[in-house]
């Protein structure tokens, strides 16, 4: 008897929970669909294309009827209007589109700088998160990230005022052979091409030289490594002239020091960003600092290692040490200050 009451109670609680949860889920889904539509239309207008209902349906994977209902809803909320057979964004719609884009790119930047989420996953995560960030969240986020100019793919992040940093860079396919370039942007869609670009080290900030250009592909040097890529991939990568000479050999890093060896820091690789970059700087790994390798962890086969920098022993894992570039010190003169 008692057991029955108990079981029923549990069943009712579970149903209530599922109901509430389901309802919330439904509301978020509904809102996401609407916002995804706005984002798509915004993107169309940015690229001077027309947003037509059919394309929208295809993009969102909706039936025609569902799409029409969605458009109706958007028109009711004064986000769009119909200009002929096209769909145009109203100012309110444009503002929403801008905010979404801002949210998406800022969140991507956050994921790449402050978390250890792999780069290939951040687009998907940002697609979800962009719907729940408020205007105020974005302001805080932007300041925390130090007002980044671009997302991790190199796309500009719009300001709150709607201002843009002008898009720069030319596709790698149009770049002259032999001239050093720096990657500023990699298209993040389609996903498999983006993943391929990542695998080849073609990320914003990477230094590239085209060694050879053939119709089917390019022979590159990417950060010192030989790489062959297909033309279709090369078209996804945008570059500008490299600010400095591309290093022929990758510079020496702290990870290359042997016990007791000393070196002077040249700088921290661009791949280290956000909080970690600041932490390393704060610990004293700034340009010009003199570093001595003191200790290796024997169990991890030399990982982590401890370095004496500005009078204190700091242990770093290999992943960080190899991103701090340094030049060896041979003279016995410059003493490490205690």
């Amino acid at each position: 008897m008692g057991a029955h009451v108990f079981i029923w109670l549990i069943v009712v609680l579970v149903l209530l929970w599922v109901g509430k949860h389901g309802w919330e889920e439904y509301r978020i889904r509904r809102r996401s669909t609407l916002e995804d539509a706005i984002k798509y239309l915004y993107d169309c207008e940015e690229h001077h294309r027309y947003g037509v209902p059919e394309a929208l349906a295809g993009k969102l994977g909706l039936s025609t009827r569902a799409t029409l209902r969605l458009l109706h809803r958007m028109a009711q909320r004064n986000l769009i209007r119909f200009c002929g057979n096209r769909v145009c964004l109203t100012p309110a719609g444009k503002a929403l589109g801008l905010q979404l884009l801002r949210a998406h790119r800022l969140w991507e930047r956050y994921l790449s700088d402050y978390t250890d989420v792999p780069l290939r996953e951040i687009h998907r995560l940002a697609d979800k998160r962009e719907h729940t960030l408020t205007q105020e969240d974005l302001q805080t986020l932007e300041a925390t990230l130090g007002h980044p100019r671009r997302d991790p793919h190199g796309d500009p992040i719009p300001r709150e005022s709607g201002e843009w940093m002008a898009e720069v860079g030319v596709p790698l396919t149009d770049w002259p052979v032999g001239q050093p370039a720096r990657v500023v942007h990699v298209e993040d869609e389609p996903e498999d091409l983006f993943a391929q670009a990542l695998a080849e080290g073609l990320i914003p900030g990477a230094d590239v030289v085209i060694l050879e250009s053939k119709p089917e592909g390019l022979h590159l040097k990417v950060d010192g490594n030989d790489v062959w890529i297909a033309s279709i991939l090369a078209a996804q990568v945008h570059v500008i002239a490299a600010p400095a000479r591309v290093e022929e050999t990758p510079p020496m890093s702290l990870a290359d020091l042997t016990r007791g060896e000393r070196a002077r820091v040249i700088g921290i690789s661009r791949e280290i960003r956000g909080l970690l970059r600041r932490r390393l700087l704060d610990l004293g790994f700034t340009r010009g600092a003199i570093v001595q390798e003191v200790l290796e962890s024997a169990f991890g086969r030399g990982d982590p290692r401890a370095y004496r920098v500005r009078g204190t022993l700091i242990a770093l894992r290999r992943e960080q040490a190899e991103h701090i570039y340094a030049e060896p010190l041979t003279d016995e003169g410059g003493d490490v200050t205690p």
Partner: protein
Amino acid sequence: MTPTPGCSSCPFVQQLGIDLSEWDYLVALAGNPNTGKSTLFNRLTGLKQHVGNWPGKTVTRAEGGFEFNGKRYKLVDLPGTYSLLSASVEEEIARDFILFGNPDGVIVVMDATAVERNLNLTLQILEITDRVVVALNLMDEARRKGIHVNHRGLARELGVPVVPIVARTGEGIGYLMQALEDVIEGRVRTHPRRIPLDPALEHAVRELVPLIEQAFPGVRNARWIAIRLLDGDPTIERAVRTGELSALLTGELPRDALPVDETPQEEETLYPPGLAILKKADILRAALDEDFRDRLVEDIYNEAARITQRVVRVEGTPAQTWDERIDRIVTHPVWGLPLMLLGLALAFWVTVVGANYPSEWLATLLFGIEGLGARAFQALGLPWWVTGFLWHGVYRGLAWVVSVMLPPMAIFFPIFTLLEDLGYLPRVAFNLDWLFKKVGAHGKQALTMTMGFGCNAAGVIATRIIESPRERLIAILTNNFVPCNGRWPTLIMLGTVFVAAAFPPAFAAFAAAGSIVAAVLVGVLFTFIVSWLLSHTLLKGEASAFTLELPPYRRPDIVRILYTSLIDRTIFVLWRAVYMAAPAGGLIWILANVHVHGQSLVHWLAAFLDPFGRLLGLDGVILLSYIVALPANEIVVPTMIMAYSGASTVTEVENLAALKALLVGQAGWTLLTAVSLMLFAVLHNPCSTTILTIWKETGSKKWTLIGALLPLAIAFLVTFVVAQVWRLSGWVM
């Protein structure tokens, strides 16, 4: 400088402890991690903030009071930071207090053996406030290492008073207080040194400063605000946008209430001049080189190096070589790991051997009192149930906790604190990092685990030193697998009664210590397994960055160690156990003496739980004890013994032989029971305090639930498998 006596006896500083009424001046202690801020805080206030030779010991701010020259001071101990430029949690706590807490003075505690590194933060603080006194601490270490710091020269360079001190002995503290008072009351004018900026940044800052001064009249650190705005700082941007900045900085808002703690989420009103400043900052920032932040830190450090060169002189061979020699040994490929285990085993061995007799004496004494008290009550003619409840219930619970827990804790804590004070713990983290990396966790988890040996709740709080949220969660969820001191008694009792008894007396203590080490290793093993599982399922991700400061070895402060570990920690933990044990004792007595259908409630409950317990190699009483002991693991053993003995004719369990007789003879324990219980003790769910802490630290019901149930599920699973395999292989039963 002639050493002044320790400050508890020094004439002008009067410690006020937590008495913070009607303070005249508010003073903050800031500085790099591990420079002795908490030591100085304790010396001045007479409080007992925990100190330890590893960076990140203090993660929240603490407050205390003292009186000097008739003025009452409120002192705030801030977490150590390397800088105020990034936005990690400790840095925010420190930064917010220095900037918005509007202190009357800031004591910057610097490590005299690492002046250059410490100057980085000092120079930044000088940008924020001019009411600064520098305490050049650890002068004894500097002298030992042949490092001479010209403190007058340093004072001239920085433009603020610099006082050499030894926080540990109190040397120089009188002078420090005098300098502080002089600065606060304006008798000494400070001229803080400004950070030289790179020309482009300097230009941008110059553009912003007048705007800030105009929009927020009375703001004294406009330069710093300008730097922060260019750099990007959410708190300051919000304050500028809403116009609250003046109110925050000049302390119109309540002085020591931190406004940023509870940011009002209501509609913010916008302040047009503030918006204009932000807009301007936006434009100026766009014109700066993208690397300007790197340059900023570089500039500060270069300045620090220049100053250091002028004021620090090193004599003879650097004393680092000693540290290095020790480091070579403790991180040695062959000796490092065995040394660590040996140290652990040695600590347990000393504990087991040392605690044995005192435990028995205490038991004899306390149970003797129980007998006397009970008889006295009977003589007074009080009803049997009053005597029973008070003496055989509440009092006996207390007596058990005290006699079982006090001796091992009084021995183990000082040993542990000694290792902590020496600076050995970060080396353990260094040695084990590769394992943590393999399972996708953070090397500093080793530090939080060692804190867990003391108390899992403390271990959970200590995880704040891990910056990556994912890895911090892993560390929180697995902290429970290191047995806290509340679980030592269970392990020690089992190790002594069951394992040690199987060996000849000469080896008994070693065997007992060995079995405890084995139990701890099982816990560590599960930490790694569960960390791996978590980072491949719920908390997917790769191991992130790891930076760890290995502090120099320091001579431990024996007196303080004995004091903190005996008086402070032991008594504290014991007290907690006692007030959990008294009600538990009463509860068990009631359960054992209320009879239903001719049997006691204990019997019925135990019988109900028994089949389940048997599956796990345990029994009903053990499970019942764990349920009763949810608030504090310390009372598991006492509860168990009382439940067994309350249900039997044996009432006095005065020594280990009697205990064994009770457990084996009456309760039918076997070696399997002992092994299962050891495993269960290491793996089971955290106590309610720890669960509460997990909830506070994560702020999430989901993770709290996982933190509580995951270990329990694992404990069930492991003991179940062990029991089944054991029985199938036909060893016992």
